[in-house]
């Protein structure tokens, strides 16, 4: 079926089967491979993207369901030269090792800021990370990164 997807501020006309998942269209059709598939059973969060600013699992959403919404992927956050404050915080806090889970972790961090504001506690972040799995870090530095990234967004917005 023909669909138009608004991704990172740009409209893309896509012809894909109705059964295409959003993550499949992002990665395979459009080459936006920053969004990852870690489990395909809706549990790991590597595939998180923002839909009108709200974090969702792009492996559990049809691409067709995302029509009409503004989709933000990790490619749409910062540039290689100027990272988004949440990305920069992962770099500074050593919040990644292999990096496979990181795009989804960054999106989960932005979801926390959307719902709880920029002043997050480690306990809240650990609780809110229920839908993100990391096989490398042991989470401690991810929690530190999200707390710091959220705080940096307050200054960045001011």
């Amino acid at each position, binding site marked *: 079926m023909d669909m138009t997807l608004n991704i990172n501020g740009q409209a893309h006309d896509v012809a894909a089967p*109705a059964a295409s998942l959003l993550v499949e269209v992002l990665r395979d059709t459009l080459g936006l491979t920053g969004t990852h598939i870690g489990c395909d059973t809706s549990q790991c969060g590597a595939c998180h993207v923002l839909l009108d600013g*709200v974090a969702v699992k792009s492996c559990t959403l*049809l691409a*067709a369901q995302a029509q009409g919404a503004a989709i933000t992927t990790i490619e749409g956050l910062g540039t290689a030269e100027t990272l988004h404050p949440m990305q920069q915080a992962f770099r500074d806090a050593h919040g990644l090792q292999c990096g496979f889970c990181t795009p989804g972790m960054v999106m989960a961090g932005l979801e926390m800021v959307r719902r709880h504001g920029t002043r997050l506690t480690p306990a809240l972040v650990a609780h809110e990370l*229920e*839908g993100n799995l990391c096989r490398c870090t042991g989470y401690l530095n991810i929690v530190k990164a999200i707390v710091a990234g959220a705080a940096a967004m307050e200054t960045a917005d001011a």
Partner: protein
Amino acid sequence: MRDFDLVRPASLAAATAAFAAGGEAAYLAGGHTLIPAMKSRLRMPDALIDLAGLDLAGIVPDGKRLWIGAMTRHADVAGGASAIPGLAALAGGIGDPQVRNRGTLGGSIANNDPAADYPAAALALDALIETDRATHKADDFFQGMFTTALADGEIITRIGFAIPQRSAYAKFRHPASRYAVVGVYVADHGNSWRVAVTGAGPGVFRWAEAEAAIAAGGALPTLPADDLNSDIHAGPEYRAHLCGVMLKQALAGLV
């Protein structure tokens, strides 16, 4: 996933007509049960009918009941069902934040997973389940594992929960799936109590002995293990024990 025709109706009539148009059809709400089932080919519908265009979301208090639209997402119930704090807390404990951003009340009630959370609230809060063609009482609606009173093609439009004086839900969550190994919803309706148990049996059920004991102020009962579920997570005796523990936790947390 096998391909299908995607239909995006703008009215209930168009949705039911599309359902009846031939082949195997399925309604799509939040997709957080259906899409995983389609990925693993447990479900292979020929037509998928997206309910997103039907304007079925929203929370409206109406005297003695809190009416919540079928397409209201778990996150919105968690944030908006302040008239029944126990129900809001239940919604806030479903899955993870991203599941709650997509999954809907109607999808959970229609699916009637024996370990799902909402069916316990619907039963304990004496809910009315309104559809495009009928109104079902929760007591008659849930008919065992993945089985409900819904006819083929019937669409849940909204659910009316009786607003209790106090209520609470306690769940022993499976640490990976987050569904209930056992969940107990207790509601104080002023002149009566309702206690509903999910996760423990082949479907959600009322625990009449517990209701009577609470009303009489007597000792809390033990649930017989005979008909309870047994799987790799918990055997029937352990589930029976957990029912008692969750009952006490819910009673201690009434709001």
